[in-house]
């Protein structure tokens, strides 16, 4: 929508009728949702299925292996929901970071004049873009899990960074009595203390990042290619080194072309974290749609909460990216 300075009475009427039309549509939508809700509720009642959100305050009674906030089996279900949401977001943030990094390097690599680098980048792109991401996750999980060493023959990346088939262990701040750093120490079955990334997390992180990184690399490549050749030449004419031209001249301009499609990839990546349910990473689909639904027997409410979460975060990502996009667009003009 372009911004128009002039606005006669005719436009006011048009604006007004558009406003009322939107109101009407909004009302119809609300009525529809209400109708579906009521029908569902009365049908559930007829079926003898209990409904309502009161289950969120009941004791959870199950354990979750990774929790970023304090959680035990005695915590209420809404805390389990919060744990699951944080686990989902943690995974999404890690994936978005690594995929962006990969995409940036591979995208630039595709444009490299070095034959080997550009071919390797192409090979990466073709390989990871053309295999369904769920299969890639299974591959990283089951293949890597079988390849990782057991507890007794753990790999010590450094003294305090330990990798085995139970996860990647590292020292972490302990809040028990004030602050202290607790390093991972070997126990009877696994390393204890510190913090660890579950193999499920690692498989998802690698799988989702490699897959989405391939899409991002294409976006980055086309972004750079959209920058007029003259801009590169002008940068060089100013005496800038190629890396500086890339960073200072081409990148800011490429960003404008990159951001809209990148938003889509980020949103898809966020939603794809729900594939975690296929391999036991405790995110929202696994914990909520899986475990809690069976405990509480409230499929409609459980689905509603989960859908609201995905819709909410997707809107948030779109909004944030939209703002960023606006900023770079304005700056470019």
């Amino acid at each position, binding site marked *: 929508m372009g911004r128009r300075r002039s606005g006669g009475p005719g436009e006011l009427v048009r604006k007004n009728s558009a406003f009322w039309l939107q109101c009407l549509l909004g009302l119809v939508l609300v009525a529809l949702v209400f109708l*579906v809700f009521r*029908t569902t509720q009365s049908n559930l009642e007829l079926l003898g299925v209990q409904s309502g959100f009161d289950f969120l305050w009941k004791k959870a009674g199950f*354990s979750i292996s990774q929790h970023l906030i304090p959680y035990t089996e005695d915590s209420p279900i809404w805390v389990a929901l919060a744990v699951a949401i944080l686990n989902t977001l943690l995974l999404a943030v890690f994936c978005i970071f690594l995929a962006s990094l990969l995409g940036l390097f591979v995208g630039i690599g595709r444009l490299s004049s070095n034959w080997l680098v550009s071919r390797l980048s192409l090979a990466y792109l073709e390989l990871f873009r053309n295999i369904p991401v769920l299969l890639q996750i299974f591959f990283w999980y089951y293949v890597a899990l079988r390849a990782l060493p057991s507890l007794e023959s753990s790999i010590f990346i450094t003294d305090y960074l330990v990798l085995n088939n139970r996860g990647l262990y590292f020292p972490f701040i302990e809040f028990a009595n004030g602050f202290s750093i607790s390093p991972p120490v070997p126990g009877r079955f696994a390393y204890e203390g510190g913090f660890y990334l579950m193999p499920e997390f690692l498989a998802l992180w690698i799988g989702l990042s490699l897959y989405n990184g391939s899409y991002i690399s294409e976006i980055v490549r086309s972004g750079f290619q959209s920058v007029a050749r003259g801009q590169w030449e002008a940068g060089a004419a100013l005496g800038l080194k190629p890396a500086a031209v890339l960073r200072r001249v081409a990148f800011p301009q490429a960003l404008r072309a990159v951001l809209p499609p990148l938003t889509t990839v980020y949103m898809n990546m966020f939603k794809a974290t729900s594939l975690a349910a*296929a391999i036991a990473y405790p995110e929202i689909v696994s914990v909520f749609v899986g475990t809690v639904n*069976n405990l509480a027997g409230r499929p409609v409410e459980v689905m509603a909460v989960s859908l609201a979460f995905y819709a909410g975060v997707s809107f948030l990502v779109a909004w944030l990216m939209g703002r960023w996009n606006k900023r770079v667009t304005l700056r470019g003009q």
Partner: protein
Amino acid sequence: MVEAVLRLGRGMALCALAVLPAGIAAADTLSDVLERGKLRCAVIEASPGFSSIDANGRRYGFDIDNCRTVAAAVLGDADAIEYVPINPNTAFTTLQSGGVDVFPGGATWTFLRDTSLGLDYTGTYLYAGQGFVVRHASGVSRIPDLEGATICVAQGTTNEQNLADYFRARRMKYSIVTFADVERGLNAYLADRCDAFTTEVFSLAGRIVALRNPEEHRILGDVISKEPFSGLVRQGDPRWRDIVFWAFNSRVAAEEFGLTMGNVEEMRATTEDAEIRRFLGVEGGFGRQLGLRNDWAYQIVAQVGNYGEVFGRHFEPLGLERGLNALWRDGGLMIAMPYR
């Protein structure tokens, strides 16, 4: 992928709930089944002992025989079944939304499920308990040895909570990895992701026997829960619930009466015992009381067999003993309600 499809199916079932017109209350599953000529039976696929598919594509197992029992009673043909594959996660919703007529397997009878799901239980037909499998090499021989261990479990089962209750009550540390189904959980255990895998002992034994090297694993002797398995039907259809209940009861009764697949024909012709005569439909019209043919129980025994035969067929090859599932007069818990 299967997971995604099942989840999608479940979502669609929920949508159906939203748009279904009111009036589900007047459910008459029996008429639906008779009209269709086939029983729609929910089965959990690939669970040795309970539900498998042989080389000829035929399904067999304890759960399958439960489906066959109901089909024999209602339609007179144990094979008139349309199997609907489900997983523990989708079982209840599929049944609630009318996708199947009965879910005869794998559901522990619990208070909350009975009171909140809009489903009715149809009587316990298998007494199990939750057990653990560990690698021999781990040196674990009793459940308390699992202090600090990582344990794999399938979600959507009572096992997840039993585990939490048991370890918490004893202040034992553990870490849990929760998989969408038993198959994946067991695979992860085999890949050494976990020190132990836990589920109900009957299905555990079946799966361990089927492994390439079962001798590397051991099933711990103790169980941490009681898992009374019962069939499930939709709530609000008392006649259908009665039919499923009495169909299962018939197999236990047949064993008490000494009726088998082999002798039921002859016994029907010769027996003087009034209860057996009522049971087999020679007199009394008990089948018609249920809205079925009078030879309903005869068909069950002739086509599927008595409880002991069914148990022996599927569980004894896995090395499982009758235990609690023996007849009451042999020290077990199986007791048939009287036919009078």
